[in-house]
């Protein structure tokens, strides 16, 4: 009898161990997950991570985003950038390493896109105040005096002293087109390097960056929002260890006298860019690059934008035109994109 009970016991133990194996294997990552949504960097961010240190990672990622907001925000009067914008024309202003790096790289993207992106529209952006309760249509007389041809060439950087100097009083730095991308890259770096996270997704106001593949080894399915119905997608891309960033005319805007005024400004006019596109999505490995290019290509218009992206290595894009045509670059024929990093 005791022997029989022993057999039954062994059987049950074996069954229990096997069932743990069946359900646990491949699902262990999924079973340890953490996710949080918060308002940060003037946008809504969701961080979802998998693995043993998921919860710690989520906390660290938001901490990083808040730290960067206090450096890079052009609107927050407490931020380092806000302070620098007040003094850099009067005198050479010493800045933190982070602010120096973001300025240097942003200016580089301005030059590379031949001014389609210009990160020196701070004063004009402040007039429009998109995304705030003070958003309004500025008069032409307010904008014209602040228009500086290739304003980004009027910023002087000194690597040795780590200082910034404006050569024109009408420019101020605004990293609306690069800061979120930079932050997404930094959040990912902290998570992978300091917390050993191998699986996760960060959505920083529509800037999406993924860490590795999904918990089941599959790529992450990322929808490109339909500009006419935000609950639908026009296309789904499958990305692994990569980023997808969209610039659209439907995110921060207002309509006045039947005209839609949106936050993507054409540096040449100081008014909302109006070159036939209503949404551009850029897929790349680096989120700051994708962020900069999504804004720059929106300003360029379809033909120029397609040619620009096609000439780049490991960068793809999806454009939606005013007549709702969806155009993808050649490398997205199978809707997959994989980062190598």
């Amino acid at each position, binding site marked *: 009898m005791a022997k029989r009970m022993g057999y039954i016991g062994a059987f049950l133990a074996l069954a229990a161990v096997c069932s743990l194996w069946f359900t646990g294997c491949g699902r262990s990552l999924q079973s340890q997950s953490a996710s949080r949504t918060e308002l940060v960097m003037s946008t809504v961010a969701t961080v979802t991570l998998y693995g043993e240190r998921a919860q710690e990672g989520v906390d660290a990622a938001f901490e990083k985003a808040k730290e960067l907001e206090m450096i890079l925000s052009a609107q927050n009067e407490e931020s380092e950038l806000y302070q620098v914008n007040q003094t850099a024309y009067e005198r050479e202003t010493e800045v933190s390493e982070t602010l120096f790096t973001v300025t240097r790289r942003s200016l580089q993207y301005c030059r590379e896109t031949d001014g389609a992106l210009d990160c020196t529209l701070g004063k004009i952006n402040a007039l429009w105040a998109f995304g705030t*309760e003070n958003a309004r249509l500025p008069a032409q007389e307010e904008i014209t005096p602040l228009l500086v041809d290739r304003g980004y060439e009027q910023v002087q950087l000194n690597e040795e002293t780590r200082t910034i100097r404006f050569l024109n009083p009408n420019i101020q730095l605004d990293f609306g087109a690069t800061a979120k991308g930079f932050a997404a890259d930094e959040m990912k770096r902290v998570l992978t390097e300091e917390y050993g996270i191998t699986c996760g*997704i960060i959505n920083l106001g529509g800037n999406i960056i993924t860490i590795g593949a999904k918990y089941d080894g599959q790529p992450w399915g990322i929808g490109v929002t339909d500009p006419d119905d935000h*609950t639908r997608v026009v296309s789904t891309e499958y990305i692994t260890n990569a980023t997808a960033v969209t610039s659209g005319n439907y995110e*921060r805007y207002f309509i006045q006298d039947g005209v839609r005024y949106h936050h993507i400004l054409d540096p040449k006019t100081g008014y909302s860019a109006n070159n036939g596109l209503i949404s551009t999505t850029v897929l790349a490995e680096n989120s700051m690059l994708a962020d900069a290019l999504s804004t720059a290509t929106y300003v360029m218009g379809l033909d120029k934008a397609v040619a620009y992206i096609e000439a780049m290595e490991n960068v793809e894009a999806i454009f939606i035109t005013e007549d709702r045509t969806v155009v993808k670059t050649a490398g997205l024929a199978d809707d997959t994109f994989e980062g190598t990093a």
Partner: protein
Amino acid sequence: MKKKVKYVIAGTAAAAVTAALIAVWVMITQTKVSNAVARVYQNGTLLQTIDLEAVQESYTFTIEGSNGAYNTVLVEPGQISVTEASCPDKVCISQGKISDGVLPITCLPNGIVIQIETGNTANSALDGMTR
């Protein structure tokens, strides 16, 4: 002795089959858990937690902010939306009704976030949406 080996093999096989059945049962019951719970935040503070599956009849409530700011939220069985808002861009209204965790409703000017957490997101076709 030989008989004992046979018993062990048969026992192991039976255990494996039983385990597989248990595993299938666990997976099925897990995937059935999909309670959509909406969390409503104002400037990072959790205001309300609403189990959308438990909602029988639709209702609305208003979130009031500073300087007369407001957002009217419509709660329906399985879904939630913002129907009225004082903000100038009305992005929160145009986001429509949400029923999954893919994209939260946000009103930046008024600091409102409505996020749905589902018991199981594995069945969602999308992991995120760019915008």
